[in-house]
């Protein structure tokens, strides 16, 4: 017998979705704002027929059924339009009549996102709320003989170095000769804004961050630096005096470098540094990815590509025959482009092979630093499997790298820049200080900046995470003017300044009780403890319970 209908495998009910929309008919004014604003079109106007019992006063008319139509909200239960829990519907609702709630059991959508043979891609983060960095405590509190300092009143020197520092024997000899060459070294703030490209971020977000960085430098005297990510740099910024606060990133797609090279003769200032991206924490061993949704005419112009095509960077640099050759060649080329005045350093994703890269870098007298991006790094777009399952935690990678440099006596020669999951649960200063005391010279942060400065609603439990398709409800990662106009660059700049100023206070509140103020406590591992014996042993810090 023929069935009356077909239950397809991907037919889901709202109960199978990760987020359920709760809608209150009594409060709803049917204004339609929620359905208009929903980035994933997960809710739509519903027309419903309802039976009710009508009982009139008296006995003349018998009670009867009444059929009426009412309008309300329906949740779409298809994998392609699934609610991501961003909550924009409740933000725009004038009557608080609608909001998403997380389903009580694991959703079924995850089994159907591969429709068409394309695995899930998303933006965001690793979706693991656990953080080893959060568990590290600062246990060496100065008492009695070395009194703790006053974080509010004492003078602090919160600076770090970015650049290759030759051994003192060589560097001092060169510096004592008028014609001697000392590699460029920048004295900068130890917290940097990590690489988030123009393209991954919206123009308003990018502009806001740049304004904030300029303000921190020029008004507050904090030498904060920001990395462009792989996507080039707007031509006016390249030709402005603010370029000195910017780390230009070159990656395997070389996006934007045509524009950068053409701007070279007109540059008023050298950039702070050049970061060569070989890998990133969110999608280790995979190239950058800007999906077609976000490649509009502006992005296309800056990157030198046609509009509306996806831009997956190759996983490796095309010049790469071997890592040694690639690193050496690229570093040399970049140094030459700026007359050996700009530090050039590679960035890799956290990996067990980081030490091999480090040893290679150590032998290259020009390599200015090594940036390592741990598995908790966030991104604008990546394959779900890369983000969730690939990569190496940052803490042990940084510690191994630092101790390896100590073994070969080069801990001051190659600054380690750590990134990936710093502040993922909001503990920005504590996480950064822990990494510094494990051996990092500086820390890069991205996701925290998006959350604090742009109001990103993403979480470590798969909320929103649609940065990749340009539908960011806050306009942080969208290239659609209708969306990114929601974000005022002035607000972003203000928040960035707030973040750095408050970070500065918190870092002092960590350093002062440890008795540290005159130099950044790089490698001060005797101050660290953790309540996990295995982790303590692995990191070479104290086990405390």
């Amino acid at each position, binding site marked *: 017998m023929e069935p009356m209908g077909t239950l397809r495998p991907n037919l889901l009910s709202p109960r199978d979705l990760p987020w359920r929309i709760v809608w209150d008919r009594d409060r709803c004014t049917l204004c339609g704002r929620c359905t208009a604003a929903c980035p994933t079109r997960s809710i739509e106007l519903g027309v419903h027929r309802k039976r009710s019992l009508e009982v009139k006063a008296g006995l003349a008319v018998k009670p009867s059924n009444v059929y009426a139509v009412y309008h309300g909200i329906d949740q779409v239960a298809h994998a392609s339009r699934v609610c991501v829990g961003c909550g924009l519907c409740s933000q725009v609702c004038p009557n608080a009549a609608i909001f998403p709630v997380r389903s009580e059991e694991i959703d079924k959508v995850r089994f159907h996102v591969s429709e068409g043979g394309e695995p899930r891609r998303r933006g965001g983060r690793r979706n693991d709320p656990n953080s080893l960095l959060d568990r590290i405590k600062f246990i060496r509190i*100065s008492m009695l*003989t070395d009194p703790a300092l006053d974080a509010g009143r004492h003078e602090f020197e919160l600076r770090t170095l970015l650049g290759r*520092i030759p051994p003192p024997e060589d560097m001092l000899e060169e*510096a004592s000769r008028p014609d001697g060459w000392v590699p460029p070294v920048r004295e900068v703030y130890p917290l940097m804004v990590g690489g988030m490209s123009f393209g991954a971020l919206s123009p308003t977000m990018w502009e806001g961050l740049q304004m904030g960085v300029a303000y921190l430098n020029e008004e507050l005297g904090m030498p904060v630096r920001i990395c462009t990510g792989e996507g080039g740099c707007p031509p006016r910024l390249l030709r402005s005096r603010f370029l000195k606060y910017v780390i230009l990133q070159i990656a395997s797609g070389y996006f934007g470098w045509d524009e950068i090279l053409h701007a070279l003769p007109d540059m008023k200032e050298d950039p702070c540094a050049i970061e060569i991206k070989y890998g990133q924490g969110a999608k280790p061993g995979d190239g950058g990815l800007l999906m077609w949704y976000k490649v509009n005419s502006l992005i296309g112009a800056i990157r030198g590509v046609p509009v509306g095509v996806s831009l997956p960077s190759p996983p490796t640099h095309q010049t790469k025959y071997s890592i040694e050759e690639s690193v050496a060649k690229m570093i040399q080329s970049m140094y030459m482009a700026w007359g050996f005045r700009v530090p050039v350093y590679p960035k890799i994703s956290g990996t067990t092979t980081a030490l091999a890269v480090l040893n290679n870098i150590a032998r290259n007298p020009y390599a200015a630093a090594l940036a390592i991006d741990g598995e908790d790094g966030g991104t604008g777009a990546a394959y779900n499997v890369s983000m969730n399952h690939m990569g190496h935690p940052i803490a042990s990678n940084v510690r191994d790298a630092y101790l390896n440099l100590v073994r070969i006596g080069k801990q001051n020669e190659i600054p380690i820049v750590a990134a990936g999951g710093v502040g993922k649960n909001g503990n920005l200063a504590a996480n950064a200080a822990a990494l510094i005391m494990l051996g990092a010279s500086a820390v890069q942060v991205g996701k925290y900046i998006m959350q604090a400065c742009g109001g990103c609603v993403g979480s470590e439990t798969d909320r929103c995470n649609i940065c990749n398709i340009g539908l960011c409800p806050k306009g942080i990662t969208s290239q659609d003017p209708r969306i990114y106009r929601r974000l005022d660059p002035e607000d972003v700049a203000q928040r960035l300044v707030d973040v750095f100023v408050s970070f500065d206070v918190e870092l002092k509140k960590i350093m002062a009780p440890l008795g540290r103020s005159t130099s950044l406590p790089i490698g001060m591992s005797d101050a660290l403890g953790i309540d996990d014996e295995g982790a303590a042993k692995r990191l070479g810090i104290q086990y405390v319970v």
Partner: protein
Amino acid sequence: MCRLFAITSDEPLSPMTAIQALDVMKEGHDGSGVGLLMSDLGGELEQFKGSPILSGIFTQEGIKRLDRYMMELGLLTKYKMSIRPNTTPPRGTPRRDVYLIRVYEYPYEWEGLSQDEIEQRLLAIRLDLRRMGEDDGSMMVFSFWPDTIMIKEVGDPMAVAGYLGLDRQALSARIILAQGRQNTNYAITLYACHPFFIQGYATMTNGENTAFVPIREYLVSRGFPGYTGYQSDSEVFTHILHYTHRRLGLPIQAYKHVLTPLKDEELARHQDARFLRAVKHSLRFLTIDGPNCVIGCLPDKTLFMLQDSKKLRPGVAGGRPGLFAFSSEMCGLDAAIPDRDTKNDRQPMKYDLVSVDASRTEIRTWNQWEPFGRTC
């Protein structure tokens, strides 16, 4: 906090001069130890200026092992002034067999060696002996160097000095460094007792060095055999001095710039900015994070003192031509040289380095803002 006292004099002085100064400053230390360094020796040891002197504490078994070891190297004893106390030690002081002060004669095979090679061998011998004694505690070696004696012991400085009979006439020196120890967060071991010594360089410090671990790691990773020990966080100050002055060949002013570099914006206004920035950057891991007062002595017998900006009560230097003293507290200086003109006392502030060279004519103050390299 430890109390520090150093004195430099044209006329040889008894170590009791320094011990008495420590006693005056007793309020600030708990008598958990005393360390003495004597250099530019007078008395009976003056005649052996060029010969290495071994200072340490030995058991009888340790002496036998020492003799066997030195014989094998061809180092012969030339003179002994060992102290074998036969009274009951003061409370808290352990009974020891021998406080050794022994002058050696270089072996014939060392003739013709460069001064540098000889100094490396002296260091290697001291480290060897120290290692040999570490297992069974039969030897503790503090120095093996010409014209230098070191004595260290647990206990109250005055009581220990009386017990050891340090007031004996045969024992005198023109330069004396003394520390009364306030044991802090490290175990009581004599190797943690200041002053520390390496190849003619000695320093003693008060205050905690909170940047100790990264500094220690940096020094150890220099691959120099003498950069070892570190039972005290203050030992790094001696090794930083040795590294800066001897191995990098920089003047003493660089030591100040290494320990407490100028800030970046300050350097920008300094006439030697380029070189000083290279010093700061290349030796970043040696920046201290006090509060610390450092008093030290160079191989050329220059005494110096400096402190970092967190040292709220700086040490003081004063005296008169021919006799100058450096003290962590004013009362120590007053006790040692009461008849000086106090108007000429110097209290080095955060940018200063004060020093008295071997001519002992004046205290010189050098400031980090001054041109780099001016002799101090």
